[in-house]
């Protein structure tokens, strides 16, 4: 296995070594390229190759060619630290990756110390940006708590919610959403959490919980979970004549929800991924992939393409690979990418990426502007 990986790495390095002169800009690409999770990592390598080729064909960045250094971490934290050390010693000043949150977290201290800019297309763990421990880390994908943040901002900002009941289905996904929502409501200080409860999926009836919502005096319900429980909840809330806003996550932003809940679904809010398929650059990136590799791109291709474009822009505008200069560009410069026009906030999360709020209107989810 080890021999296979290193020969793969050598082959890739050789492939790009042809174009490399002594003065190149080395960009590391790290992620799972073999093993169970290879399908998450390989599209990122392809995206990096496409952008690198486009830039190099046009004469490179400020006259310097991009040289990709591809390293496989198999999404394993223990390999990720080796990969990071290798990339740093190879002189990479920008790394696209890593792919998995666990591997990314393991590798980040090494990059932080070496002041290497890291842009992940897929690591969604909220801690990576929010802990503030990794100032050189950026990402082009929304973090796991982005939906809860969007939901709370929408409830408090747009709907003027004061008392919010937070419910979840006790699953990892739903409970995670609910816990983040609770945290954001409490941090915001403009509204209070009047109820925080788990419900049993598949139960015959939720009327006790629904009575509890009434008792709590909530004006808004936020629910983390999937559509079967959501439709039971909204219909029982309507049946018991309780007038509240209902906000949920993309487990509910599903047409089955509207089909099952019928007229009770009207007015329900749910967050879901932004539709980016209409963007010209998105189509262009997919076409470029087809032209170069003959297939449709895979997971996280869009965000990896975006990460690579942001990196190229940062190096070009900064005029060097000095981290502080690049970071300044990353945080101030808007870049057109296949996931929309983005820049990064001080913590490294991309603004303008991720989720939108939708509302059921006349039997359809309509994006709220």
């Amino acid at each position, binding site marked *: 296995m080890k021999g296979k990986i290193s020969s793969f790495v050598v082959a890739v390095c050789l492939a790009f070594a042809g174009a490399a002169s002594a003065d190149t800009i080395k960009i590391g690409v790290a992620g799972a390229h073999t093993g169970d999770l290879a399908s998450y990592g390989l599209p990122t390598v392809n995206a990096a190759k496409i952008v690198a080729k486009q830039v190099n064909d046009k004469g490179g960045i400020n006259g310097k060619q991009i040289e990709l250094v591809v390293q496989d971490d198999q999404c394993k934290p223990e390999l990720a630290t080796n990969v990071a050390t290798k990339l740093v010693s190879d002189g990479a000043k920008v790394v696209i990756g890593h792919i998995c949150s666990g591997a990314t977290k393991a590798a980040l201290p090494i990059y932080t110390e070496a002041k290497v800019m890291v842009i992940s297309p897929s690591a969604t763990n909220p801690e990576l940006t929010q802990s503030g421990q990794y100032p050189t880390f950026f990402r082009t994908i929304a973090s796991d708590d982005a939906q809860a943040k969007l939901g709370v901002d929408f409830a408090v900002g747009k709907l003027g919610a004061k008392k919010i009941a937070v419910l979840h289905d*006790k699953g990892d996904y739903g409970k995670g959403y609910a816990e983040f929502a609770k945290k954001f409501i409490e941090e915001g200080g403009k509204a209070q959490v009047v109820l925080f*409860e*788990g*419900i*049993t999926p*598949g*139960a*015959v*009836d939720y*009327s*006790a*919980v*629904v*009575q*509890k919502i*009434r*008792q709590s005096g909530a004006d808004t319900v936020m629910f983390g979970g999937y*559509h*079967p429980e959501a*439709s*039971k909840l909204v*219909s*029982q809330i309507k*049946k*018991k*004549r*309780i007038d509240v806003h209902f906000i949920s996550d993309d487990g509910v932003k599903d047409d*089955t929800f509207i*089909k*099952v*809940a*019928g007229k*009770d679904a009207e007015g329900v809010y749910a967050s879901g991924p932004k539709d980016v398929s209409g963007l010209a650059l998105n189509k262009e990136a997919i076409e470029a992939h087809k032209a170069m590799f003959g297939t449709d791109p895979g997971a996280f291709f869009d965000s990896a393409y975006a990460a690579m474009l942001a990196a190229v822009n940062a190096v070009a505008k900064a005029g060097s690979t000095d981290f502080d200069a690049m970071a300044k560009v990353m945080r101030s410069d808007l870049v057109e990418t296949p996931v929309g026009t983005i820049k990064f906030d001080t913590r490294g999360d991309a603004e303008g990426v991720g989720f939108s709020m939708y509302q059921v209107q006349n039997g359809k989810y309509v994006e709220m502007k």
Partner: protein
Amino acid sequence: MDVQYFFELFLSGLTRGSIYALIAIGYTMVYGIIELINFAHGEIYMIGAFTGLIVAGILGTMGFPLPAILVLAVLVSMIYCAGYGYTIEKIAYKPLRQAGRLSPLISAIGMSLFLQNYVILVQTSDFVPFPSLIPEFAFLEPIAHIFASSDFLIVVVSAVLMAGLTLFIKYTKMGKAMRATAQNRKMAMLLGIDADRVISVTFIIGSALAAVGGVLIASHVGMVNFAIGFLAGIKAFTAAVLGGIGSLPGAMLGGLFLGLSESFGAGYISSDYEDVFAFSLLVIFLIFRPSGIMGKAKVEKV
């Protein structure tokens, strides 16, 4: 805690308890007569809901009024499920009647899995919307926010059916034969009671009641799915054990007891632990009073 909140929780527990009781009767009757836990009973409930959905769909397009659709859907689904109950007994349990207790139990679990997958194949594995068949009663409008028409109907229908069943068991010839078979099957047969027929009737009645529950509850919550029978069945079984398995009033009492404790538990403590309340009760009862609320301590025959 204020009185109105207590009352709201009490009513929601009553609805839930009636649902459990209606399904628990099927478990307890079958157990009382052939000492078999019919694990396929929850699936009968689910098939009842699906039949109701199909009948309601057909009648709805033909323009029947709402109350007529509800009554016809319940009736057709009762007949259909009675047929299922009868057939399941003949196919899966009767050939195993002399085979000890474990074999029919395994057969029951197999039947339960078979029926679930059968519904996935011939219907769907998705959640399907169920039309709201229960009309909004005008006289309930002032208290609809705590006790909706569907809650009312479920409680009333359950009460009427259970009263009817009690009278049936107590005063008809078939009821007497059932009680005799439950007490001692061999002796009943010696006295000329057709035990096979009694067992068939037991399955038919239990399945028909589950069908009523299926249609009413599906209309109450507004959706059906192939898996709804599982949790409902487990809870109803718990209710039957709490009440004393084999005892008819026990099933009703057990259902209400379980429904109310879940509702108060969720209301005053947390709904996170709803299932924990239900199953802790089961464990406590099994330890301290294994024969249930109404059950008699069993004397092993030597």
